[in-house]
């Protein structure tokens, strides 16, 4: 696809913000309302059903806390990758992006171990509405983590060659957003008991 | 560019002419009779299935191969509120409006004849714990009307039991026993069935006789 002719439109920047970054901001805006819908519905149910706490008690708070830490660390790497990209150091940016991806996969692995345990204990997506929300909200978030990891791998391989370094910042923005969503999910699904 | 400015007046006039003309072609009354197969496709298939085998998920019975006189009789009962109008008869209340999709008695007859041509099938057993040998004894009461082979008897207005789902027969026997089915004063055949169902004293007896009935169909 390298022969793809870029229209002149892509080179303009009336707002002064790069187009890619602008698009990521809009993407984040539309994602906020999606997660807002899930979390809003969950909160409404949760407030109406205090007895759900007995189900929430079976979530693995330590795994959740560890994952929070993993994501926060990976966000730090994303910031470092952005800094490196700003200094036009593609190799270094790629290195930090790979570390971010490592964080993403650690998160997913911990998550899958956690879920396996819970499903074996009989808490499946259809066993109770709390668990339906638990798997749905975390599942949608997990898909975002996976998508972010794949995009970062693509961008890192470009950045290594010094191509499209401005994308490092854009994907970093997206990654911070994914982290912030988790910051909301963690207390709502794990801590509130 | 604007040369056709004056053209909308004739078009308008033409249209005002067309409207009542079209309205005059009132195709009401021209109600073509549909074939039994077409009626079945449009009104029965969605619940009873293309081959008339019924579905457990929506508690519709197998109707394939049931005699035309019986299907017709039951459809008429549903349409007139003789069957399926008891407040506790959840499934019957679902069937009653569906039977009213048929526009007239001719359509009821046509669709009944079509249902009779569908092939009955042996249905999988869903009830556990039925004793067929014990059930054979209970079946003695049923035998008089439904026949030793369970294929029913038109003279006695007894339907065929062959190829029917055991869960459906179970629920209907329970309804007869509870007076949810067959209690309507105009339901003469249902009224005959009601005391017969009382000979099956408990759920175990019902399961036994159903186990026997399932051996009748192959």
């Amino acid at each position, binding site marked *: 696809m390298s022969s793809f002719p870029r229209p002149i439109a892509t080179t303009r920047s009336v707002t002064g913000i790069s187009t890619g970054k602008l698009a990521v901001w809009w993407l984040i805006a539309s994602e906020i309302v999606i997660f807002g819908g899930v979390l809003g519905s969950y909160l409404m149910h949760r407030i109406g059903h205090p007895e759900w706490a007995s189900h929430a008690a079976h979530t693995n708070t330590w795994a959740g806390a560890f994952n929070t830490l993993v994501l926060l660390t990976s966000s730090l790497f994303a910031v470092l990758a952005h800094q490196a990209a700003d200094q036009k150091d593609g190799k270094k940016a790629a290195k930090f992006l790979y570390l971010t991806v490592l964080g993403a996969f650690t998160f997913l692995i911990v998550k899958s171990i956690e879920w396996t345990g819970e499903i074996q204990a009989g808490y499946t997506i259809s066993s109770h509405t709390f668990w339906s929300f638990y798997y749905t909200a975390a599942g949608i978030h997990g898909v975002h983590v996976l998508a972010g990891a794949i995009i970062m791998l693509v961008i890192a391989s470009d950045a290594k060659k010094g191509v499209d370094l401005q994308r490092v910042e854009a994907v970093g923005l997206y990654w911070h957003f994914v982290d912030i969503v988790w910051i909301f999910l963690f207390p709502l699904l794990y801590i509130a008991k | 560019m*604007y040369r056709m400015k004056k053209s909308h007046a004739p078009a308008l006039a033409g249209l005002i002419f067309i409207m009542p003309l079209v309205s005059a072609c009132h195709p009401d009354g021209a109600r073509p009779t549909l074939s039994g197969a077409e009626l079945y496709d449009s009104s029965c298939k969605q619940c009873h299935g293309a081959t008339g085998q019924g579905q457990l998920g929506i508690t519709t019975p197998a109707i394939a191969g049931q005699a035309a006189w019986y299907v017709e009789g039951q459809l008429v009962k549903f349409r007139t509120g003789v069957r399926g109008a008891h407040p506790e008869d959840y499934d019957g209340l679902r069937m009653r409006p569906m039977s009213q999709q048929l526009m007239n008695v001719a359509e009821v007859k046509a669709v009944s004849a079509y249902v009779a041509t569908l092939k009955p099938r042996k249905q999988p057993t869903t009830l556990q714990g039925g004793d067929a040998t014990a059930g054979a004894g209970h079946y003695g009461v049923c035998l008089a009307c439904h026949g030793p082979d369970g294929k029913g008897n038109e003279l006695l207005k007894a339907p065929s039991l062959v190829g029917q789902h055991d869960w459906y027969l179970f629920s209907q026997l329970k309804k007869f026993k509870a007076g949810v089915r067959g209690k309507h004063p105009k339901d003469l055949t249902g009224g005959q069935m009601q005391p017969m169902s009382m000979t099956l004293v408990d759920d175990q007896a019902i399961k036994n006789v159903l186990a026997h009935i399932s051996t009748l169909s192959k």
Partner: protein
Amino acid sequence: MISKYVESASSFAGDIDHLIWLVTVIVGFWFFLAEGVLFYFILRYTAQDGVKGQYITGEDPKQKRWVAWPHYLTLLFDVWIIIAAITVWQHVKQAMPQADSTVRIIAQQWAWTFVHPGPDGKLDTPDDIKLVDELHVEKGKTYHFELQSRDVLHSFSVPVFRLKQDAIPGRTIRGWFKATMAGGFDIQCTEICGIGHALMPARILIENHEDQAAWVMSKSPAAAATGGTP
């Protein structure tokens, strides 16, 4: 306006009809005014040879008031309608006057079951009268209803009462009505509830005191034992 075509058979039907009439007058005025001006402009300013269009920006406050004033007026009329609408709404849906009797309405795919309290006037007693697709009420009595559903959403609608309320499975929704006219009318389901949605018509039979009493007696357990329809 509405009552010319659909009888007005409840104590609040007149209020709703009056509200509809008020809205009709107000929006009718605006509608015909706007259409009139629109058609006048179209005819008045059709292109003529040698006449150029005028250059009006519409940004000048003097010009803007031609849209600003109508706009303030709409706001004023809106407030009027809102006040009238909320008054009616509160009377019909929020206030619950003292009930003389209570009926239970159970919707299902695709039938209505009406539970009447029977001779003792109380629900959940053995003499309750359960009827499918037939609701008997007495003229002039205030009824509360308890609306339930056994499966999906339904909506209990009695056009002659101007009354409508959705039934939600798992909940009991309460409301009230007071019939003011004897007769038999349609009850409709107005929330799509599956393929039999069109085939769950029911009738409401509004009876005078004597007829109602006679009907209750005929349905009492004693009468049923001697051969009443179940």
